[in-house]
């Protein structure tokens, strides 16, 4: 189905990663745990924009479809997954930050490879959504995140730079998909096409 080929979902995911990266920068400047409230901010701002964009960009081009109970569950799973992933990352980051000021040994070991764990988590979540939604490119995003975080761990690249990179790449990919989608499904002028004859 071409319903998620419009790139809007990618842009939401990319924005999510990007805002976490920016959140960490803000944390460092303001010394306020902005990252912890990021999922709520993202859900309350980006979600309505996404729904509006679907109505204004996607539906007029490919029509309207209601997925019903199974589809709703899938969509709910996406939102829930994004929220849980965001909260998980927030908590991990919060604990990571507290840990720097005298953490237990087990946390020391856990967070020594924190970026690899987060990368693995992203790959698993990406694969889960890719399987649920039938969108193979989500595997790619997950694997990209894993590769970047593993590289970041060994090369000592700060976490926020990796998030900003991943977010930017996914947003760019979403924007490219959106352009392709708009070119592939131009708006029909004249008689509405959503009427049976």
């Amino acid at each position, binding site marked *: 189905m*071409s319903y998620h080929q419009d790139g809007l979902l990618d842009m939401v995911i990319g924005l999510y990663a990007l805002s976490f990266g920016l959140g960490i920068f803000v944390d460092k400047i303001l010394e306020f745990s902005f990252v912890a409230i990021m999922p709520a901010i993202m859900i309350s701002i980006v979600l309505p924009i996404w729904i509006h964009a679907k109505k204004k960009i996607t539906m007029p081009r490919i029509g*309207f479809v209601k997925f*019903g109970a199974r*589809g709703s569950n899938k969509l709910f799973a996406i939102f829930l997954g994004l929220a849980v992933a965001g909260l998980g990352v927030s908590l991990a980051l919060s604990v990571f930050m507290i840990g720097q000021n005298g953490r237990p040994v087990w946390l020391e070991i856990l967070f020594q490879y924190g970026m690899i764990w987060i990368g693995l988590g992203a790959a698993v979540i990406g694969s889960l959504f890719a399987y649920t939604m039938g969108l193979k490119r989500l595997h790619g995003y997950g694997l990209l995140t894993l590769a970047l975080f593993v590289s970041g761990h060994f090369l000592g690249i700060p976490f926020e730079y990796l998030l900003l990179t991943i977010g930017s790449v996914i947003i760019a990919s979403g924007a490219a998909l959106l352009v392709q989608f708009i070119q592939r499904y131009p708006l029909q002028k004249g008689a*509405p096409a*959503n*009427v049976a004859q």
Partner: protein
Amino acid sequence: MSPSDADIQNVDRLIHEPSRLTIMMHLYVVESADFQFLQNQTGMTPGNLSSHLRKLEDAGYVEVTKEFVDRTPHTALKLTRKGREAFKEYRKDVKRFIGKLPE
């Protein structure tokens, strides 16, 4: 055991036609869709799609609702309970007689 002619003859021919099967398959996985969505997914011309939809509607498999959304005419299509059951039955039939074929 090979499939008998009766197995194949008993399959729902209204659904078995490729264009209508495509329509039924698309409507089966959603709650409802509009005409434009189905046209995009199936690649049929409006006339062809309308013609097949009419046959499915006449059989009571598809419910067509015409309404106005934001002052724009809109046709919502969904499988009726009868249509959903017929598709399930068709699917079972096809699986049964194809499953009987030797490797």
